[in-house]
């Protein structure tokens, strides 16, 4: 079955938020907009990957959600608060796991990808374009606390590569 990249991105994001960060994703009522609270000091990170095609995945989470992710992943007790280093670490690991689960769902488990350049950015939001190109897929999430969004940017012509790989390997089924 052929799934659109944005559907796969949304599904993988939801699974990893719930299974790794133990944060419940609420049903999408269409209220989450990419530009919501664009001026708030949200957390934004990106990770690069290279393989049959190259790209960059961005994750943005609201300021109130980031500490909760770290608390849940660390299993902190009530009254314990994560350090800023732990929040950064948990946030980056969350993006790393989303990326690692996303790529085989898009193109199957045959291709080999290398990931690198996992960074937290000082920017308040995910850019509208990266290296001159718009995202090939975006997904926005309303969570039990706060909100999040993902944006996948890839090199030019990668959609054709994705479709070809998907057809070969039966990904996204």
């Amino acid at each position, binding site marked *: 079955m052929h799934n659109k990249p944005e559907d796969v991105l949304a599904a993988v994001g939801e699974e*990893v938020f719930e*299974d*790794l960060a133990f944060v419940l994703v609420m049903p999408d009522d269409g209220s989450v907009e990419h530009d919501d609270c664009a001026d708030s000091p949200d957390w934004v990170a990106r990770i690069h990957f290279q393989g049959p095609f190259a790209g960059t995945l961005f994750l943005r989470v609201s300021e109130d959600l980031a500490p909760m992710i*770290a608390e849940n*992943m*660390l*299993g902190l007790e009530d009254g314990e608060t994560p350090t800023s*280093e*732990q929040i950064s*670490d*948990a946030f*980056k*690991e969350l993006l*790393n*796991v989303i*990326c*690692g*689960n996303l*790529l*085989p769902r898009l193109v199957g*488990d*045959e*291709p*080999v*990808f290398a*990931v*690198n350049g996992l960074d937290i950015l000082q920017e308040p939001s995910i850019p509208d374009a990266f290296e001159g190109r718009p995202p090939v897929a975006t997904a926005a999430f309303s969570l039990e606390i706060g909100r999040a969004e993902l944006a996948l940017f890839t090199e030019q012509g990668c959609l054709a590569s994705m479709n070809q790989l998907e057809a070969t390997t039966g990904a996204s089924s």
Partner: protein
Amino acid sequence: MSINVLVVDDSAVMRAMIIKTLKLAGTPLGEVHQAANGQEGLDVLENHWVDVVFADINMPVMDGEEMIDRIRANPALRDLPIVVVSTEGSKTRIQSFHEKDAEFVHKPFTPEIIRDILEQKLGISHAQQA
């Protein structure tokens, strides 16, 4: 009987998650060692008795694959059980870990997956869970 574990991952949060998951799975833990990369992991193994290693792959300084190769090349350590815990999704790469006699756990994981790997593949028994 308790088991000594070494957890090698450049993410301190992921190391904490693995250790917590081992506890939730009822693993009878003895000493718990941590390392942030493959070289640090080898340093721990030089100085401590370890029963099983949980290792990430993508790490700075020395990645998990090189660490596994060095462990397998060391006569004193070559039979040490190793569990790769990674986001790797390539069948080819996962097969290469199996060829190095390492088990593979995909992130995210559950206590049941960790327990099953330790029991079925490594023969490490767990306490009965209430």
